[in-house]
């Protein structure tokens, strides 16, 4: 990784047109442009309004349960025999993942803008659950678009959303995953532009969404700075997070962008392998393109047609990545690697057995990189991993993939 010379801050992006270097922008239909400009204006006003910050902080504490613990994973550290590993426990927050941080911030904006109808796309269902949760809390109508493949593999989350009063609309186009759900949410938005606020779940989409979602998620990195300093007396040496669109990673990384001594490691989903067409690693296996309102790295063919991504984890199953990550990749401030389905499953099992924590399959990709990296590092290397969500929702997939090797569901014999 290249060392940054004393240069201007990397934390001031995007520029007024919504670009991080070459990436970002506002590539949307004219119908949506006025609304996106209104949103930008409203967000600027909210940022300067202390009552907005106060309300967000108060709900974050008492409703979400922040701050989330920074937990020293003693048995995992011992097992891997290298770096000291800390887990940032976003899995313990209300609704079971970091997604609530953003959903809460955006619904406060929706209320400021006088919108009463909320829509969202969801992959694994965690963003859908978080959105349905805050919509219930603020008494707003809520429609969630979810790919039919994902509805099948994340059934418990579908039921949670419905229980919370949201309407879950299956999307059958394409592979029936996150990309297709986002197309359908955009079609709804363009049709109901006057009444509807679109809560995008990741650091992608047209400006100002990538910046706004990042800002709401940056509470993760801000807490880590303070917590690790209190525990260890210094900043960490490396931060590791999984990446689909990249919101949990951006939230962890952003407060550290101007600390070149802190290595940033993003882990994409390599699916069945980067040498196969079945993966979701947009930075490792894609190139620059324009989709869903922004220019970023995309999985696509020579014709510019978007490829269907694949990952065992529905939350990473997306052919794009947030534009700020594309930029951090281009300027080499962050390093991006990938973990396969198999590696993620092994990491999933290891954390269950060593720490008594069932992680989300998404977060298991970050843990897979920790398993590769930590043993090679000295014992004084401080590594913080974002445990972005919990794995209850993944029991069906885990049972399907691990039942035989772990004997799941079989009555255990007495020794």
């Amino acid at each position, binding site marked *: 990784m290249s060392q940054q010379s004393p240069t201007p801050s990397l934390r001031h992006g995007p520029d007024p*047109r919504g670009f991080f270097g070459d990436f970002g*922008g*506002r*590539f*949307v*239909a*004219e*119908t*949506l*442009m*006025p*609304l996106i400009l209104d949103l930008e204006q409203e967000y600027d006003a909210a940022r300067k309004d202390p009552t907005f910050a106060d309300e967000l902080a108060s709900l974050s504490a008492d409703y979400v349960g922040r701050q989330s613990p920074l937990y020293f994973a003693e048995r995992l550290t011992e097992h891997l025999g290298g770096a000291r590993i800390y887990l940032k426990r976003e899995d313990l927050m209300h609704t079971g993942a970091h997604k609530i941080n953003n959903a809460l911030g955006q619904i406060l904006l929706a209320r400021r803008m006088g919108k009463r109808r909320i829509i969202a796309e969801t992959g694994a269902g965690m963003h859908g659950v978080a959105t349905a949760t805050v919509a219930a809390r603020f008494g707003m109508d809520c429609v969630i678009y979810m790919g039919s493949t994902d509805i099948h593999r994340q059934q418990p989350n579908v039921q949670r959303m419905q229980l919370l009063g949201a309407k879950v609309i299956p999307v059958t*186009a*394409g592979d029936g995953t996150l*990309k297709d759900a986002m*197309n359908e949410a*955009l*079609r709804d938005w*363009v*049709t*109901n*532009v*006057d009444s509807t606020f679109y809560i995008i779940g990741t650091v992608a989409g047209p400006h100002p969404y990538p910046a706004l979602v990042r800002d709401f998620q940056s509470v993760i990195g801000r807490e880590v700075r303070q917590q690790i300093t209190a525990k260890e007396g210094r900043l960490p040496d490396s931060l590791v997070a999984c990446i689909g669109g990249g919101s949990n990673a951006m939230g962890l990384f952003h407060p550290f962008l101007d600390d070149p001594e802190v290595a940033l490691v993003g882990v994409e989903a390599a699916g069945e392998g980067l040498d196969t067409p079945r993966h979701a690693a947009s930075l490792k296996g894609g190139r*620059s*393109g*324009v*989709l*869903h*309102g922004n220019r970023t790295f*995309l999985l*696509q063919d*020579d*014709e*510019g*047609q*978007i490829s269907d991504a694949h990952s065992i984890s529905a939350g990473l199953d997306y052919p794009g990545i947030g534009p700020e990550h594309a930029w951090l990749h281009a300027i080499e401030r962050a390093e991006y690697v990938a973990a396969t389905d198999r590696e993620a499953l092994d990491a999933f099992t290891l954390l269950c057995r060593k720490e008594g924590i069932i992680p989300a399959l998404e977060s298991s990709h970050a843990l897979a990189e920790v398993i590769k990296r930590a043993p090679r590092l000295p014992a004084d290397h401080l590594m913080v991993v974002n445990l972005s969500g919990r794995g209850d929702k993944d029991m069906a997939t885990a049972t399907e993939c691990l039942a035989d090797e772990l004997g799941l569901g079989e009555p255990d014999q007495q020794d």
Partner: protein
Amino acid sequence: MTTTTTPEGRLARRFAETRRQGRAALVTYIAAGDPDYDTSLATLKGLGEAGADVIELGMPFTDPMADGPAIQHATRRALDAGQTMDRTLEMVRQLRQTDQQTPVVLMGYYNPIYARGVPRFLDQAKAAGVDGLIVVDLPPEHDDELCLPANQAGLNFVRLATPTTDARRLPGVLANTSGFLYYVSSNGVTGGAAPSAERVQQEVARIREHSDIPIAVGFGIRTAAQARQIGAFADGVVVGSALIDAQASGESPAEGTQAVLALTRELAQALIDAR
């Protein structure tokens, strides 16, 4: 914002002609390669004679975010049948062997153009006989990407104006638009609900206060009766999803083509009768 020279060409001539004739131009949309190359080419070649004044030829894209089910399915069929940008441009070249007059506007999304490289795409489109471009996901904020280079290459860049385009935005939307302005009659995706003719007429009048560019109205116009209503005041009437449905309605691809051309004749007659 930079001012560019407005390319004069088939679009300007055609709208001047229909204005002289005292009728709205019929703008027809078909998806290139739907349901297969040969059928789509046969439809394309028949449209002018059937009464289409302007042809919008859809460039298929995997993720048509602004389109309703009819055009989603059509562009999917085309991609599944092997449609590529080369073949879309080849269709225009083949049309130009028999039809030098009917303007052709390529319509679609930015990524397939961006993937090809803007200068290369513009050269090839111009050489093939394309007159203009409509690219849904490029608002005026991104004019430097394609609109300004297209104008310099002598291609019209046709912009969409919508019910949400307010007085503040309208000058920016009109600034580098040429050929015609596509007024989207209702918020939503293609193939949606029919617009209220009265409201659309007010909107068209509002835009005319700012510009004398021809205004074609589209989204939700399916029948001769609807076309007649809108054609009474607009410079052009765009029909897309209804033609896509006609293409898909035939028992054979050839019958689908006949259905498209029959509907086109009906719509063209309605526009003659409208005023």
